[in-house]
């Protein structure tokens, strides 16, 4: 552990430090605004650290590899966390709750995510995933009253524990087959092992993938998504949809690439199936959904289906384009999702019935900024030009074309066709005239929406700089 590796680990260390400080603060004087401050500062410092660490990219032990790609996502995750922080302040304040723990949990979860992003080894994967997950259960169940959060939390806990069990067992099988636990090691040794005992390797890998796919809520492991999205406090849902899923996908990508899984046609086949199923079923489920949070849950299923196309494409080409595609699409998706959830959090708050689409009617004439924000988010999800989502789709389609994945592209087209309908439904509802009156959002929320809208539009209408960044990773 020399100093430079310390520097490389700076983001993680900073987050951990924040955790410690929060605990100490809680033991001295319980005050949520102070805690909020500390958390914010912690995030900002870690952001700076993430930037700083780029000078010291290296693999720290066998567990973590700190590279530009990872740091980019670290930055992204931290940004998302900041947004969550901003939202959560207003979300919980009306209720006179103890909130310090919430921030503690938030930081812990982010820490887990960062570890996950940088993990190159089954152990760090496990630690990161669980650290993130366990904190997340608590965050979901955090509200003191109401049944839905609790139900969501327990469902998420049980199901994801089951999924991690699968993942662990899969790794166990892989370990048994290869005798190695680092992705790279598995990658190199699996080929021999496959020759001797394909069943072990394949079923092992599939189990691992299943465990990961669960976190990404890909078909057929998607069923938890709507319930958890609906039940969880909206900021937490946003956090789950962006930080957790993003980090897990990065881990998947690393595992997939360094483990050279793209060599196995069978896995590619399985992944293609999962992708196609996710694109179609996710969109179909969202088609007539009236609860906006559930609708977003279903659409997220479809979106990670789209993203899988890129991984499948790896089997046919190893271009910079693939990495770029992942980088860009995830970035675009995270931004858009944050935008969507920040609007939903502002409009709907924590009352269950307010999540119904009818409550969004006439939003254009009530809260223009928020409405425009949601519109942009929906258009970006639907992949309309000038939004980040379009550039994302642009990447995925071009990758798909260059690898000739016509079936996946067909599914993508069908999926998007269905998707347009329900995204438009929301926009149409907002454009309706309605008499619902509601308290106007605070400056901060409007500002947040404006910033996010600007970023989404920016990413879609002038993506050149981002492409260059993504290209350099």
């Amino acid at each position, binding site marked *: 552990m020399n100093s430079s590796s310390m520097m490389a680990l700076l983001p993680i260390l900073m987050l951990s430090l924040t955790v410690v400080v929060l605990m100490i603060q809680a033991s001295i004087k319980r005050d949520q605004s102070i805690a909020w401050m500390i958390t914010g500062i912690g995030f900002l410092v870690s952001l700076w650290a993430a930037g700083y660490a780029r000078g010291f990219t290296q693999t720290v032990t066998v567990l973590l590899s700190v590279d530009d790609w990872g740091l980019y996502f670290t930055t992204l995750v931290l940004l998302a966390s900041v947004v969550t922080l901003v939202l959560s302040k207003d979300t919980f304040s009306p209720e006179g709750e103890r909130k310090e723990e919430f921030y503690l949990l938030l930081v812990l979860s982010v820490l887990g995510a960062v570890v996950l992003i940088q993990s190159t080894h089954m152990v760090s994967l496990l630690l990161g995933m669980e650290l993130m997950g366990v904190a997340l259960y608590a965050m979901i169940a955090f509200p003191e009253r109401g049944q839905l959060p609790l139900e969501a939390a327990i469902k998420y806990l049980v199901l994801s524990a089951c999924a991690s069990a699968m993942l662990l067992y899969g790794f166990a099988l892989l370990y048994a087959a290869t005798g190695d636990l680092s992705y790279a090691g598995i990658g190199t040794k699996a080929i021999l092992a496959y020759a001797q005992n394909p069943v072990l390797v394949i079923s092992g890998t599939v189990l691992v993938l299943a465990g990961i796919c669960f976190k990404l809520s890909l078909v057929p492991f998607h069923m938890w998504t709507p319930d958890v999205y609906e039940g969880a406090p909206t900021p937490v849902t946003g956090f789950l949809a962006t930080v957790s899923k993003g980090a897990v996908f990065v881990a998947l990508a690393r595992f997939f690439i360094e483990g050279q899984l793209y060599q196995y046609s069978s896995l590619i086949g399985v992944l293609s199936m999962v992708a196609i199923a996710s694109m179609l079923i996710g969109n179909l489920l969202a088609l007539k959904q009236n609860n906006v949070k559930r609708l977003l849950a279903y659409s997220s299923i479809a979106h990670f289906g789209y993203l899988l196309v890129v991984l499948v494409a790896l089997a046919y080409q190893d271009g910079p384009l693939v990495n770029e595609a992942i980088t860009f699409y995830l970035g675009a998706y995270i931004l858009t999702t944050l935008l969507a959830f920040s609007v939903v959090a502002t409009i709907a708050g924590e009352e269950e019935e307010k999540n119904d689409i009818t409550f969004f009617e006439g939003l254009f004439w009530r809260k223009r900024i928020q409405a425009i924000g949601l519109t942009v988010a929906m*258009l970006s999800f*639907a992949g*309309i*030009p*000038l939004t980040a989502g379009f550039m994302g789709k*642009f990447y995925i*389609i*071009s990758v798909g*074309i*260059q690898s000739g994945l016509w079936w996946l*592209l067909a599914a993508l*087209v069908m999926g*998007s*066709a269905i998707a*347009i*309908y329900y995204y*438009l*439904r929301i*926009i*149409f509802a907002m*454009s309706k*005239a309605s008499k619902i009156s509601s308290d106007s959002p605070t400056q901060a929320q409007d500002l947040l929406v404006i910033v996010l809208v600007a970023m989404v539009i920016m990413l879609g209408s*002038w*993506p*050149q700089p981002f*492409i*260059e960044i993504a*290209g350099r990773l």
Partner: protein
Amino acid sequence: MIMVNLILILLVGGLLAMISERFGKNVPRIVALGIVLIDLVYLLSQLSGMSDLTQLQAPIPSDPGTWLMHFKAEWIPAFGISLELALDGISLLMVTLTLVLGAIAVSASWTDIKIRRGFFEANLLWTLAGVLGVFMALDLFLFFLFWEVMLIPMYFMIAIWGHENRGYAAMKFFIFTQVSGLLMLISILALVSVNQSATGQWSFSYFDLLGTPMSEKVAHWLMLGFFIAFVVKLPAFPFHTWLPDAHTQAPTAGSVILAGILLKTGAYGLIRFAVPLFPEAAMDFSYVAMALGAAGIIYGAILAFGQTDFKRLIAYSSVSHMGFVLLGVYAWNELALQGAVMQMVAHGFSTAALFMIAGALQERLHTRELREMGGLWQHMPRMGAVAMFFVLASLGLPGLGNFVAEFLVLLGLFQVDPWMTAVAALGLIAGAVYSLMLMQRSFHGEPNPKLTEMGLVDFGTREMITMVVMMLALIGLGIYPQPLLDMAQPVLQSLLEVTP
């Protein structure tokens, strides 16, 4: 830069119109009209500086230098995407048509729109901007961008200010065009990547992509992607079903823009992209396309006859008329192409006018149902006469623009396939049948007693001015179309040379 300004003026103007609502309910429409006219004047003033338009030399498709105007600026170099706009005779025609009809559309919205006028006019102007972009963009990425983006304000126009069934109509319109657009996007990207694997560098520029070498099979598929996107917009049988709903439900101004301009983008796309980019494939495909066109002519005419909703009837008549455009494009000889271009312009005026009459009637009678009309001539002779004029125009009366267009199309088509021509010619008869039926049910026949005490007011000055403008345009096109033909001729000439 001129072309960029043309678009910018409209975009900014939209914002102004929206803001201007603060200063009074009626300010936005004035602002909007002003903006469109300014844009038009600006365009014309720039043209006067240019070489004599009737003496245009044939632009070489692959050499932007030979075009009337050309503008190119880096945008996303990573993919060889640039802000590339160019203007040749046909684009110029279409741009002018767009602006003129834009002004007419504003006038159509004058009293029609009651709520949120600012936002309406803004959407109207933004749609126009998008359409201008479509007509001028020569970078396929940019083209696609405009192609998709212009739908959004249009969607709002239908969804917010439309009639009873607007939600359904707007949704249908958007989904049809979006899905077909997605197919086109895939085709574009595939074309680009084919070109990239050939030349080794990304480029979305029309000029680079022309004549991209590719296998016959690939060419067919990619051409199909473009073709579907364009014929959905055209619209051609059997992709037309979004149109009757959208036209019927849209506010008058919306229908005017839809029928007058938006449909033309499809035809323009066929002429500019679908055929030149894949000449052989398109030519192999031409018979299918022509069959679709002929089918559309007949089908649209018959369904138009079956309608009892004024706007719906006109909408189906557009299906029928645009069938001629499809025939003209795929007959792909000078006569037919000239006919297609003429049809785009003439149909723009005649149908826009008919939609305005429909809108005026709805404003006065609060219904589009023909069964509840009849004998309106007695109450509104001016409107009746105007309606008669445009009905005659749309049934192709010689001396008016539509006749020239349809005759040229048929003339060109006859040299390719006489039998197809015979089928298409049946459309002329069917056209007469439904047009006269429309006239009979609305303005002729026994006056409906219910209407007499409604105290109907005839067309006012504003409406008459708008109508007279379009009448003169159609008469001009009918008896001396030469300027238009000359403007389009060199372009078509050079396009014809692209194909084997």
